[in-house]
């Protein structure tokens, strides 16, 4: 009986490929499909990942060496002052946004889970609305809020006779990333808060713990996995986000903007590739280490469109 026939009939009959496939997938169990079937099942995914991810990434990595400094181009992010400054700025801003989002959403998320009041579901729905706004739309929202015709400008104009406009620089970008992060972190905090065991708090209180101690010893540790995972995603997203900066202005020097400029304006493919690889490697390494040190919480697939 041929392999094709095996697949067609869904049988687990041994074939010449069986030993190889068994090595890859382990021994066939009566309940599951045969190794040949499993191989068939993963083929489309395998082809997509290989052809459109592995090969292109390898080619990009090779292109870096064509740069002006040869192999040294790989380290241009560390050696070139301008790129390094941009990296530091991107890191600092991402960390800042993450911190703010965690604090604000930690308080509000817990509040929304713990209290029942009219309009609660409405507020939750509104807070999670921007969940998959693309970066450009978020940028436009920042312009609406803090741009020349923005809400904040009009308000300060009416109150102090001076228009407060900060959409088009790094503060605007900060606001944009915060806007983007709030839905994600709120959802994660609310999910963790729902899983908190109320008996743990009752136990702490029965042992005499005042409110602040209950928060410190029971509630925060309970929320921690959710905070870490959503924080990690928030940070990684801020590191790579491009659309918001693109909409606000082209002279904000965050790393994705620098890469874009190098590639399109300066046609400096090797440097753009080097910076891309550095950014990608750092983001991946960060998420992977969070996942490693904090269990399975750095799940990147929880991240929405950047």
């Amino acid at each position: 009986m041929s392999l094709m026939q095996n697949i067609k009939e869904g049988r687990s009959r041994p074939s010449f490929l069986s030993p190889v496939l068994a090595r890859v997938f382990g021994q066939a169990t009566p309940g599951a499909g045969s190794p040949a079937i499993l191989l068939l099942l993963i083929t489309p995914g395998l082809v997509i990942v290989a052809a459109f991810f592995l090969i292109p990434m390898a080619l990009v990595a090779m292109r870096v060496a064509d740069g002006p400094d040869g192999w040294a181009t790989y380290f241009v992010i560390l050696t070139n002052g301008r790129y390094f400054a941009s990296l530091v700025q991107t890191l600092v801003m991402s960390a800042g946004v993450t911190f703010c989002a965690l604090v604000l959403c930690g308080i509000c998320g817990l509040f929304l889970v713990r209290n029942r009041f009219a309009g609660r579901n409405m507020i939750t729905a509104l807070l999670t609305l921007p969940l998959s706004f693309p970066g450009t739309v978020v940028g436009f929202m920042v312009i609406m809020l803090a741009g020349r015709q923005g809400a904040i400008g009009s308000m300060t104009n009416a109150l102090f006779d001076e228009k407060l406009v900060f959409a088009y620089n790094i503060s605007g970008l900060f606001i944009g990333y915060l806007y983007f992060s709030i839905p994600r972190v709120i959802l994660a905090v609310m999910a963790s808060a729902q899983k908190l065991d109320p008996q743990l708090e009752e136990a702490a209180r029965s042992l005499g713990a005042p409110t602040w101690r209950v928060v410190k010893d029971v509630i925060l540790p309970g929320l921690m996995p959710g905070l870490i995972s959503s924080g990690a995603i928030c940070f990684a997203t801020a590191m790579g986000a491009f659309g918001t900066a693109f909409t606000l202005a082209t002279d904000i020097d965050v790393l994705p903007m620098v890469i874009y400029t190098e590639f399109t304006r300066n046609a400096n493919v090797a440097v753009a590739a080097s910076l891309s690889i550095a950014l990608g490697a750092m983001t991946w390494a960060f998420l992977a280490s969070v996942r490693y040190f904090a269990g399975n919480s750095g799940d990147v697939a929880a991240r929405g469109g950047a």
Partner: protein
Amino acid sequence: MTTQIKLHDCAKTFADGTRALAPFDLEITGGETVVLLGPSGCGKTTILRMIAGLEFPDAGGKITFDGDDVTRQSIEKRRVGMVFQSYALFPNMSVAQNVAYGLKVHGVGRDERDARVTAMLEMMHIDMLADRAIDQLSGGQRQRVALARAIAVQPRVLLLDEPLTALDAKLRVRLRTEINGLLRKLGITAVYVTHDQEEAMALGDRIVVMQKGKIAQIGTPREIYRKPQSPFVADFVGAANRLDGQMHDGRLHIGERVFDAVDAFDPRHGDIIDQGPVELYFRADGLSTCEAGDADFTGRVEAVSYLGERLRLTVSGIGSMPVIVDTHPDDVISAGTPVHCRVNADRLTVFPAVAVNS
């Protein structure tokens, strides 16, 4: 260290308007173990949570510990030790840290704290687990840690909310014995909530049987077992067999048979039931198998289960519902055969029959 607890005129209505508890009084003397027994939804946990300070009684209710009014005092001020069904151990702390937590909160110094924790762990036979994480413990070990944590702070009262429900049957019996020993040794006032009649009998100095937000009966295990004051209590403590009868001039008629010398006090009023329809509640020992000549009734065996020390028969055709009868384990009886039974009249509890809908 034995605290007397008094609950006076306590009732509980939840925010959504449901009445969890009708007003009741309950006195627990110092050092006594009181078991709150009842099916789920009867209000037993609410009483426990009121004593703990996790729920407050409706206006008018009053709770005192040794005469101190604690009615509006929150749980963290009451110095109660609590053991939860789900253990509620802090997952971010080790075993020793869990036990030390209450001491730390109370500001006990490090040296004394360590000494007390060690003593507690030794007492509960878990000293070798001190540095373990909570998720590395078995259910029984967790329950020991929860007990150690609750008593480490030397609480005025120990409150246990179905602490053994999550464990398997064998372990439950073993831990029950241990808890019993511990409560006697400490001499602490304890309130124990369970829905398990056997557990209640084994642990309680007194048992409070609860039914639908009301106290159905308070008594020693013997009183509850032998003299249930209502069909509900009788049924709940294991007298699951029921027959209908009639009293005529102080004599009990069941079907065609007539029995003298029946203990027919109306438990609610104390008077003798002389006339009228009655309900009879009894355990498997209320009937026994016999020869055809001695039989009061003849039924049909529906099912047979071999329980080792006895053979348990489910017999139909005697009352309106099948009854359970035990017989010698070596008897050979199979389902579908007729069986002759004699009534042991002194084992019957007689209640005046009530209309179905009351």
